């Protein structure tokens, strides 16, 4: 049992539950629940977005990748970061001007509500649940290691806290938990990077040269290795990371928490800055760890492997630079990170059920806010229970591929149709539904046939689909499906849908008629 870590984590939990209580008193309407009343500033939202992106997976995973392969770890970081300017230039403002609670509001703006909301909700739930399971399993393993509590309790603890934050505090609590965690993680990582640089006399050259001297791969860690040697794989991975971010429902939802397009724009600016800064820090953490953790026998077990596995590199480095107290702090922050991210995921999944499925499809817009909020709370509870069950079921499965590949699915099922609905007059309901579905089905099928699942999980001889990332193919299929089935759609409904584009275009450009912040 790691008592410093546990007490720091308890402090975090007590504090965030206090915030949830405060947020619960301010969460009265559906708009409060889904979007914190639309009253956040660009800076706050930017921090929350950055918090969503700098998850435990990126903090522990990317630093571990740099520790093992050096430069290749940076390639992942850059892919995620490079998506943000594109989101700003093409999506953020139009999304804010057109939508209210979920990105399905935008896609269904001029299309037929029922089929489009059904497919968008399916896309949201698939992405949110897969991501949630990956986070739950990762969280359970990590907490087991860091805090010495059993996997079962760890998963249940994460599930219960997540449901608490979301059902009582809605988006306001979810956002503030995310902001606090982002500040803690950014400060903790800054301290680690500073201590690493101090160790090397504030010379990155000294750090890199010490790292190449002790690393088994020598100077090869300073250049791209075998990770992206195949151009098709490289482009496919790049596309998946870049546009996958723009298809993550819990990220898209954040654009509705600010008052207008101007604040949405500012939030991406701040978010890009924080995410970029964080990844630059990870270079110090990863390369510093090669020397400060890799050469220290006390961090290795009798066989010479890193204690707790490769993902524990950043945690070991915390102890190396700041002793047991700082180790406790970083462990608590890692736990907090997982909590904050799963809360956002649960909220986006719940909103797809209550807003898109219940209020818009089942009740055809006739549900009262009270009914809609009740359904969203029940949905959150159901998602929490489902996440715990799935987390326990997949405990011993190798699902490391899941969290990375969720991006490829998001890039195929959500992004193409969202983009076309805003930019292409010709998109019709038929095109949107078939586009989403072909993206979803092709992404999942190609994933199953890829080396990560077909060979590593299902233990077949050779993969039927040779590339590790399907995004290039599944995204193209989604765009193609949406295009073909839109241009061949000669129905009366399709003509009306095309006719409504101009009004949508004016609103997306100018914000005339856009949903504003609720006043109270």
């Amino acid at each position: 049992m790691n008592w410093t870590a546990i007490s720091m984590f308890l402090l975090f939990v007590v504090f965030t539950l206090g915030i949830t209580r405060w947020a619960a008193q301010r969460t009265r309407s559906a708009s409060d629940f889904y979007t914190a009343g639309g009253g956040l500033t660009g800076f706050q939202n930017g921090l929350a977005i950055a918090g969503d992106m700098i998850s435990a997976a990126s903090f522990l995973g990317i630093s571990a990748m740099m520790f093992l392969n050096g430069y290749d770890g940076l390639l992942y970081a850059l892919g995620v970061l490079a998506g943000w300017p594109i989101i700003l230039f093409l999506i953020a403002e139009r999304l804010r001007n057109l939508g209210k609670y979920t990105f399905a509001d935008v896609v269904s703006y001029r299309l037929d509500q029922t089929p489009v909301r059904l497919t968008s909700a399916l896309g949201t739930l698939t992405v949110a649940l897969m991501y949630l399971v990956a986070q739950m399993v990762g969280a359970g393993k990590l907490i087991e290691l860091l805090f010495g509590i059993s996997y079962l309790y760890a998963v249940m603890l994460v599930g219960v806290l997540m449901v608490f934050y979301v059902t009582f505090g809605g988006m306001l609590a979810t956002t503030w938990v995310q902001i606090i965690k982002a500040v803690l993680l950014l400060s903790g990582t800054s301290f680690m990077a500073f201590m690493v640089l101090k160790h090397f006399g504030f010379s990155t050259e000294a750090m890199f040269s010490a790292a190449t001297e002790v690393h088994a791969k020598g100077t090869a860690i300073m250049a791209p290795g075998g990770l992206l040697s195949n151009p098709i794989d490289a482009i496919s991975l790049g596309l998946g990371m870049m546009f996958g971010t723009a298809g993550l429902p819990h990220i898209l939802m954040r654009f509705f928490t600010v008052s207008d397009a101007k604040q949405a724009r500012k939030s991406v600016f701040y978010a890009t800055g924080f995410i970029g800064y964080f990844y630059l820090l990870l270079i110090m953490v990863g390369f510093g760890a090669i020397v400060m953790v890799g050469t220290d026998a006390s961090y290795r077990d009798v066989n010479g492997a890193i204690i707790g596995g490769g993902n524990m590199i950043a945690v070991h480095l915390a102890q190396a630079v700041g002793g047991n107290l700082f180790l406790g702090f970083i462990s608590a922050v890692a736990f907090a990170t997982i909590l904050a991210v799963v809360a956002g995921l649960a909220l986006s999944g719940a909103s797809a059920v209550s807003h898109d499925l219940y209020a818009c499809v089942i009740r055809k817009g006739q549900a009262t806010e009270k009914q809609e909020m009740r359904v969203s709370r029940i949905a959150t509870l159901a998602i929490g229970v489902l996440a715990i069950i799935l987390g326990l079921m997949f405990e011993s499965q190798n699902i490391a591929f899941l969290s990375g590949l969720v991006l490829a699915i998001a890039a195929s099922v959500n992004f193409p149709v969202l983009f076309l609905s805003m930019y292409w007059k010709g998109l019709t309901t038929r095109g949107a539904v078939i586009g989403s579905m072909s993206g979803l089905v092709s992404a999942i099928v190609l994933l199953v046939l890829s080396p990560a699942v077909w060979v590593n999980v299902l233990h077949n001889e050779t993969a039927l689909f040779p590339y590790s990332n399907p995004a290039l193919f599944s995204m193209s299929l989604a765009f193609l499906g949406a295009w073909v089935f839109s241009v061949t759609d000669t129905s009366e409904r399709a003509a009306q849908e095309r006719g409504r584009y101009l009004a949508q275009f004016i609103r997306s450009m100018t914000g005339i008629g856009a949903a504003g912040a609720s006043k109270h």
Partner: protein
Amino acid sequence: MTPEDIDSICKHPDFKQLVRRKQRLNWSLTLAMLVIYYGFVLLVAFSPSTLGQSLSGGVTTVGMLVGVLVVLVSFGLTGIYVYRANNVLDPLNDKVRQECAK
């Protein structure tokens, strides 16, 4: 919005100018970002040795500098966009909203 409103906004010279400027800014910056990022990805795929060259005789490589630059340029481009949008597009947008809300 009534069909007449839509028609009058579309014909409004300020709206036309707003659309033209906004689209030019959006697409030129998008293109710049895509070229930078996929240029980098293709360099990694086709010529990793270029990135592996020593920067100035030491251990630090060209690739490390390029990686850091991609981060800084990404942030820089969002900065340019926000600056232009706040100072040029927003005043124009406010004008359109005022005149068309009448």
